[in-house]
């Protein structure tokens, strides 16, 4: 177990390095920073200052090395749009995104597991058919269209909830529902499948023949065993969740990291993009690791290695 965690932690910088290299190269080779930040009005002096500041006179690999050695010390450079340290800006946008991710994920997991169990318990009945159809329809729906429909219905027609922006709890409702729909359909289907598999196991038959009540079987014998695929799926989908939050934040004008990232990509604001990608990457890798450990705790049969 210790070796497993150590190995994963050792491999983490490698993944992050590859991702940062790709991001850096893509952003640098596709736009001349001098042109982007100074425009046509830049004086030669300003140009020289910028070239000096970003080490643009060095070859690209060298630029990356300089960037990297700064980044290791926590200095991701100054944002060229805002003129402040990039990391500081990204961190300041972190809290709204965390709120959104936590709410969206909770809705997706709770809703998905409950609906999935409903499907499995009443397999092949009307409720199973309806929920399964809902799940497949949800998987087939462009999620931003769902967001638009939600705004149209709840915010403009019913005037119940605000259309966009950040504020009290009511601002969080529509974005979290939209975000949760990126994952909920899959949670439903996975819970359903894994429940149906466990229900046919010997130990469930034994419990039933001993006369354990239906509820007892469901919550004590089946649920703990069936929940594992859901947890492992959760780990794999953190990346997708971040992707979803980029789109959700754009729809609802939510001032989070995702929207910052998209805006900065268009502006070729390399420091911000890399700082944000760094945070996202670390989050995804660490949460994958946590999921693996949690899984081995839930189900001791899974040995890490």
């Amino acid at each position, binding site marked *: 177990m210790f070796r497993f965690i150590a190995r994963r932690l050792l491999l983490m910088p490698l993944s992050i390095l590859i991702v940062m290299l790709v991001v850096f190269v893509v952003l640098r080779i*596709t736009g001349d920073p001098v042109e982007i930040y100074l425009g046509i009005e830049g004086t030669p002096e300003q140009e020289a200052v910028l070239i000096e500041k970003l080490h643009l006179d060095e070859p690209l690999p060298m630029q990356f090395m300089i960037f990297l050695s700064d980044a290791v010390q926590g200095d991701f450079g100054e944002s060229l749009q805002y003129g402040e340290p990039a990391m500081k800006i990204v961190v300041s946008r972190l809290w709204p995104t965390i709120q959104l991710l936590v709410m969206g994920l909770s809705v997706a997991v709770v809703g998905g597991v409950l609906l999935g169990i409903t499907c499995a318990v009443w397999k092949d009945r009307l409720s199973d058919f309806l929920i399964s159809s809902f799940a497949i329809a949800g998987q087939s729906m462009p999620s931003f269209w769902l967001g638009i429909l939600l705004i149209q219905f709840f915010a403009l027609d019913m005037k119940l909830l605000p259309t966009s922006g950040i504020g009290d709890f009511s601002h969080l409702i529509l974005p979290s529902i939209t975000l949760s729909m990126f994952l909920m359909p899959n949670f439903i289907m996975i819970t359903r499948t894994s429940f149906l598999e466990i229900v046919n196991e010997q130990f469930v038959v034994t419990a039933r023949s001993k006369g354990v009540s239906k509820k007892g079987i469901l919550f004590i014998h089946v649920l703990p065993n069936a929940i594992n695929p859901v947890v492992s799926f959760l780990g794999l989908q953190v990346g997708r969740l*971040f992707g979803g939050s*980029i789109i959700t934040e754009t729809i609802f004008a939510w001032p989070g990291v995702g929207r910052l990232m998209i805006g900065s990509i268009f502006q070729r604001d390399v420091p911000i993009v890399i700082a944000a990608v760094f945070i996202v990457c670390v989050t995804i890798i660490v949460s994958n690791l946590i999921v693996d450990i949690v899984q081995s705790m839930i189900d001791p049969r899974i040995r890490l290695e």
Partner: protein
Amino acid sequence: MRFNRFFGKNLKMVLGGGIVILVVLTALLADFIAPYDPYLQDLMHRMEPPVWSDGGSWVHILGTDNYGRDMLSRLIHGSRISIFVGFASMLMSCILGTTLGMIAGYKGKRIEQVVMRLADAHMAIPEILLAVLIVAAIGGSTLNLILVLGISGWMVYARVTFGLCRSFRERPFIEAAVSHGAKGGFIIFVHILPQILPILTVISTLQVAQMILQETALSFLGLGVPAPAATWGNMLAEGRDRMWIAPWIANLSGMAIIILVWGVNMLGNGLREHLDPKSKEIR
């Protein structure tokens, strides 16, 4: 009432396949079916509602968009790019991922390390983010979109084929082939590939659906096929800005996407049940 029994066993496959065939036929015959030129602007008849709402007429059955272009014709022509982009990018990531995964699984050692570490790194960055990054860099066009989506989806194949390939390597029929002097490439493509084909079919089908959705998401962010092109994603994104005065633009294109993607998903799930009834969910 048992719904599955009521509808027959392969309902999903029949239903999904039917929808997909229908849409593909529409795309192929677009020039003959579409009542108008999808790019013909008619500014006198901007944003006319569809026939069933107030002010609609049979001239434009599904209404017109912001430039007076016929919605029905645009939807019919839009199916072409959606299907083409979805299918081509799936094919690209399938070939890329399967080849790398099989080689890594069969050869092991250093190649395995390189390929799987690359896959790990790729898993740590959200697909859509990478796509946005690349499209913002190289610009949007149908070809670029296919390229980007193709690259962003290879890990699924690589991981699945890697696992399968490694388990096959120990099996007697591979050992027999090796002892007969078969070369690595021959074994991979002649002996191993047919074994994993059923799973690949299922993943690929489901991925076409994902790719179509990704295309619409990129269009929504302003990074799809450039503007005048009639794609469902573009139409949906254009409709968003006029949601309050002309909701049918977004809603009809949304419906078109849902129907096609739902069909593809159904087909994929049906195929999975058909090919391997005991297999788990494919994630």
